[in-house]
């Protein structure tokens, strides 16, 4: 992924006055009324222009914050993105935002993409950017355009130029074939990274999205492995005598927290990837597993049944100060720290019903945000506003990946090639 060189320049703004942007979406409450926005096909190369605008429309629509308007209703036809639009004709179709863009092939073969975001009511340009990249990289440019629009209008970083690593599932439930797979956040470009001859579970990205930690049954003992996406190389992590599982990278990528089982007892350990030194963090005879670092790397949330039922605990990154934080109904597990640091997502189990919830990092303010009965294993978008998770279908019918806004709105299925589980969301691609 690092090989894609994307150059970015800021286009000169048209509005002479420092326009006070009126166009704004408050993402903190979710939105009941998505913002109407017009995104006509980009001009220039007609095929690439339609493709890129189509991906941008789909990205913004899926966020639940925007409502891209049907192009058929557009009164004005954009032909020159360097001309100021006739704002009145866009207001007439209720557009509050307008995106105009142009795609041209450079003499050196690269694609040049220019776009401008306009505030239709404020009659001003909010953003103007230019990208250069290779033609096969057009989807990433589209996602970067989406991210720029999202950020300009919401004030939050976007999450569209990201990837999902997940487990692809095929075959009957009693002999399920599970393969490591990766795809773009919108389901495009799925690639299988393992061949299905051995089971793999719970993949997680490192902070550069170059490395995946996951659990594999390739050898006699199931263990945590690292997969280098660029080289395709796999290596077992550490020299542990028994099963290791539930890995997760530290925010700086230099450590992996994981669970080691010894004599039937599972405890949380952390391994330094540079020195390969290993530190044991929990010693309780209960099940201690599913560690997740706080974004500052100073704390680790995990789950334990030391108190009699599976609950969420937090400790300092050296293992000190272990304390239970979840006191809501049922069992609560798989805590995952929000990239913003403010919330923990978790899986609540009540009887045979599984739901995704969020709570503050002291355990207060618990809210359930998913509606399936078999939802588990949350993962955060890098901006901490959206989550994905596995949704089991029951009866051996496999599972799907779904996403939901942290507010609980806009719950949607994420398209995957067949049955899929255990999503992990990458950071924004660098």
């Amino acid at each position, binding site marked *: 992924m690092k090989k894609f060189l994307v150059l970015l320049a800021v286009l000169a703004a048209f509005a002479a006055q420092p326009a006070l942007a009126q166009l704004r979406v408050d993402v903190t409450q979710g939105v009941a009324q998505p913002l109407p926005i017009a995104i006509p096909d980009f001009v220039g190369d007609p095929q690439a222009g339609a493709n890129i605008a189509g991906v941008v429309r789909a990205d913004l629509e899926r966020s639940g914050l925007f409502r891209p308007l049907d192009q058929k209703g557009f009164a004005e036809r954009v032909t020159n993105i360097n001309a100021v639009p006739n704002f009145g004709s866009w207001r007439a179709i209720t557009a509050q935002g307008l995106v105009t863009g142009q795609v041209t092939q450079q003499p050196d073969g690269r694609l040049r993409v220019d776009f401008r975001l306009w505030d239709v009511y404020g009659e001003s340009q909010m953003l103007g950017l230019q990208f250069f990249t290779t033609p096969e990289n057009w989807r990433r440019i589209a996602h970067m355009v989406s991210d720029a629009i999202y950020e300009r209008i919401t004030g939050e970083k976007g999450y569209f130029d990201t990837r999902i690593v997940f487990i692809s599932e095929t075959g009957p439930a009693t002999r399920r074939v599970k393969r490591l797979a990766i795809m773009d956040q919108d389901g495009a470009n799925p690639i299988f990274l393992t061949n299905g001859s051995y089971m793999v579970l719970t993949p997680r990205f490192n902070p550069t999205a170059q490395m995946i930690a996951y659990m594999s049954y*390739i050898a*006699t*003992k199931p263990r945590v492995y690292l997969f280098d996406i660029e080289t395709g190389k796999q*290596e077992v992590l550490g020299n542990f005598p028994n*099963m290791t599982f539930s890995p997760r990278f530290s925010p700086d990528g230099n450590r992996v927290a994981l669970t080691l089982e010894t004599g039937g007892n*599972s405890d949380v350990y952390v391994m330094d990837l540079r020195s390969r030194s290993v530190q044991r963090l929990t010693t309780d005879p209960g099940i201690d597993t599913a560690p997740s670092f706080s974004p500052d790397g100073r704390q680790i949330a995990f789950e334990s049944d030391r108190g009699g039922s599976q609950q969420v605990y937090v400790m300092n990154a050296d293992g000190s100060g272990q304390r239970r934080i979840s006191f809501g109904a049922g069992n609560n597990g798989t805590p995952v720290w929000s990239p913003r640091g403010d919330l923990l997502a978790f899986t609540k189990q009540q009887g045979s019903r599984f739901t995704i919830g969020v709570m503050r990092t002291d355990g207060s303010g618990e809210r359930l945000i998913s509606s399936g009965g078999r939802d588990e294993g949350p993962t955060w978008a890098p901006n901490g506003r959206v989550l994905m998770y596995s949704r*089991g279908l029951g009866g*051996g019918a496999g599972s799907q990946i779904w996403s939901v806004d942290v507010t609980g709105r806009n719950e949607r299925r994420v398209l995957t090639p067949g049955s899929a589980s255990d999503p992990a969301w990458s950071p924004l691609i660098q």
Partner: protein
Amino acid sequence: MIRFSSSMKFACLSAVLVLGACTHKQEAVTTAPPPAAAAPAPAPAPVTSSIIPGSAEDLRVNVGDTVHFALDQYNVEETDKALLGRQAAWLQRYPAVRVTIEGHADERGTREYNLALGARRANAVKEYLVSQGVSTGRVETVSYGKERPICTSSDEGCWSQNRRGVTIVSGGANS
């Protein structure tokens, strides 16, 4: 970006080995121990299959390979102790045999919790066999969590079947 020393990179792929590669011989008449010389028997009935004593199938069919657990529990049930006692006796009769205990959970638990629970169950079976005189080095454990159900309905009838420990011959068996 983390870089690992190249010596670490190849550590895993050499570790492939096939679990449970024991072969089941359905028509193993020719390798069965010859009958003791005796009076000429009447023409034997044609044998189409037989279970070889000391084979993986012998354990599965004639001894029993599966015990079950209560919800979220991993203690060996009283009702399963006789079966594990038979497994221990069988293992002492065939001292070259090595086994792997698979621990499984039902679907009512997160993936990670069930991996840990399956490990507890597999280890409980192992400890019981060891308490019955089986050498600890002959018994490996592996947890499959909730990933390998034998029954897929969401009801207690299935869940109780899936919460199980299964003793699988991993090596040294007759075949």
